[in-house]
Structure formats: structure tokens, C-alpha cells
């Protein structure tokens, strides 16, 4: 990735966001094992981790970009595609699965018209699946942003989604 590509890749982020990114890198620079916390915080600020940001992190922490890419693609928490305004996460942990989590996902795929890992065209929703949120008592569970919706039924989904539309 050359300089112009990198700049183009960062164009969607505001100066303020990039400043925060650099500040995070600076804060962790000297700490061993800093990469993962830095990536977590950068993703917090920017929403996702496109290649251009990974270059910036690698350069800042003085690491080979391959290492950064390796870590980003290894952990499910990191994403290289942008997320929607609202992130809909369907739990497919065992407890949710045995209580019908798959049917909830099917209905969401149908309702939103996207597959897990994708974002709606209007960038309002992205759909993800997760492995157990530890709220098994409420299975099946759908988490939208910070809100946990327990004991979901396919028929209830439209009403829940409407609150975020």
C-alpha cells in the first residue's frame, strides 16, 4: 500500500478520529503486548479496522504489518468491514441454539435482507452471529448495540427492529 492508497483509505475518518488513534498508539507504544488493546481501542474509535488503519498501527507500534493483519484476522472481535449504525448480534451459543437461535437468525436474514457479516445498504444495520454472550438464562438472545433482548421469538423481531429504524 503506497502513500496515496493509505491516505485514500483513511479519508473516511475525521482528523479527530485519527488524532485519537495516534494518541492511543502513543500511550501503549512502550508496553509489551500492546497490539491487541491498541486494536480494540482503535476499533472503538473508528468502527472497524481497514488495511490503512492497520498500516498506521503497525508503523506506530513498530511492528510488521503482517503481525497486525494476523491478529486482526485471528480474533472475532476485530472486523475489516464497516459496521452499520446498529449492530444486531444473534447469539448462537448452545443454550440459544437449543432454544431456537437458528430460527431467530433465519428470520433476521429474511427481515434485513443481509447475511451474517454484512451491512444493510443504508448502513443502518449490520448482522453478526456470536458464540454465547453468557446470558443463557434468557435464551434465545439478540443483542442490538448495548441492549440485550431475551426470550426472542421470530414473531417479535419486527417490533424490536422497528425501535432502531
Amino acid at each position, binding site marked *: 500500500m503506497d502513500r496515496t492508497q493509505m491516505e485514500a483509505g483513511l479519508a473516511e475518518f475525521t482528523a479527530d478520529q485519527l488524532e485519537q488513534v495516534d494518541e492511543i498508539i502513543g500511550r501503549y507504544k512502550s508496553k509489551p503486548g500492546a497490539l491487541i488493546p491498541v486494536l480494540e481501542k482503535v476499533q472503538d474509535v473508528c468502527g472497524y479496522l481497514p488495511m490503512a488503519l492497520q498500516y498506521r498501527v503497525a508503523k506506530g507500534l513498530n511492528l510488521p504489518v503482517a503481525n497486525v493483519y494476523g491478529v486482526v484476522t485471528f480474533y472475532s472481535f476485530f472486523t475489516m468491514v464497516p459496521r452499520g449504525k446498529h449492530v444486531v448480534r444473534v447469539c448462537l451459543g448452545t443454550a440459544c441454539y437449543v432454544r431456537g437461535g437458528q430460527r431467530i437468525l433465519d428470520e433476521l436474514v429474511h427481515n434485513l435482507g443481509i447475511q451474517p457479516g454484512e451491512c444493510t445498504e443504508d448502513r443502518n444495520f449490520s448482522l453478526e452471529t456470536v458464540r454465547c*454472550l*453468557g*446470558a*443463557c*438464562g*434468557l435464551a434465545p*438472545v439478540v443483542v442490538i448495540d448495548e441492549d*440485550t*433482548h*431475551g426470550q426472542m421469538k421470530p414473531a417479535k423481531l419486527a417490533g424490536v427492529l422497528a425501535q432502531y429504524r
Partner: protein
Amino acid sequence: MAKLSINDLKKIKDKVEKEDQFRAGNKRVKLTVHMGTCGIASGAKSILDTFMNEISEANVNDVLITTSGCIGICSREPLATVEEQGKEPIVYEFLTENKARQIFKQHVLGGKIQTEFVLARGREQEGGK
């Protein structure tokens, strides 16, 4: 804060026991909302808010409200415990805002246990006693 020694630890223990307003008798009722992830997801936050509003509306200062973690029976969340001075704690289950209002008015203020919403009374068994 200065560092603690063992004696300080024991002092804190005694102090908390003594100063716990509820145990010391300054408060008439202790109201605990159980707020683990499960509880919060089932609406424990709004139950807490409801109790707080009720306390301020009733303008009483003898009710201690506090939160704690999950009591383990997720399928009956949200849960709250009402403990009147000198009486067994009463655990309420499947709370809604309106049930919370009724419990506050009838039980916390009026001393009448709302049996239809009760899960159980008393405390659990600790190991090895």
C-alpha cells in the same frame, strides 16, 4: 487512603457491621435489586429506577436501596429482595415496573407482603456450616 493492616481489616468488618445503616436500625427496610447481566437484560434497571422514584415520591428516608449480583435463577428475572428490620427477607420474581410500584406501596410502606409475586423467603445455604 492509608494502607490497611490486618487489624484495620477487622475494624472495617466491625465498622461495616455496625455502621450498616440497615443493621444498625436506622433504616427500616432494605431493598435489593439483583443486577447481573441477565437481570439487567430482563429489565432490572427500570425496576431500580422505579423503586428510586417511589422512594423520592413517598419522601421517605428509612428505606435503603442497593443492588447486588445475580442470585442464580435467571429464568425468573428480574428479581428483588425486600428485607424488613427483624424479618425474613422476601424475594420477588418476574418483576415489572407496576409490580415494583405495588410492592413498594403495599410491602415496603405498608408491611403487606405481596404473596402473588413472591418467589421465596429466607436465605440460601452456605457451604460447610
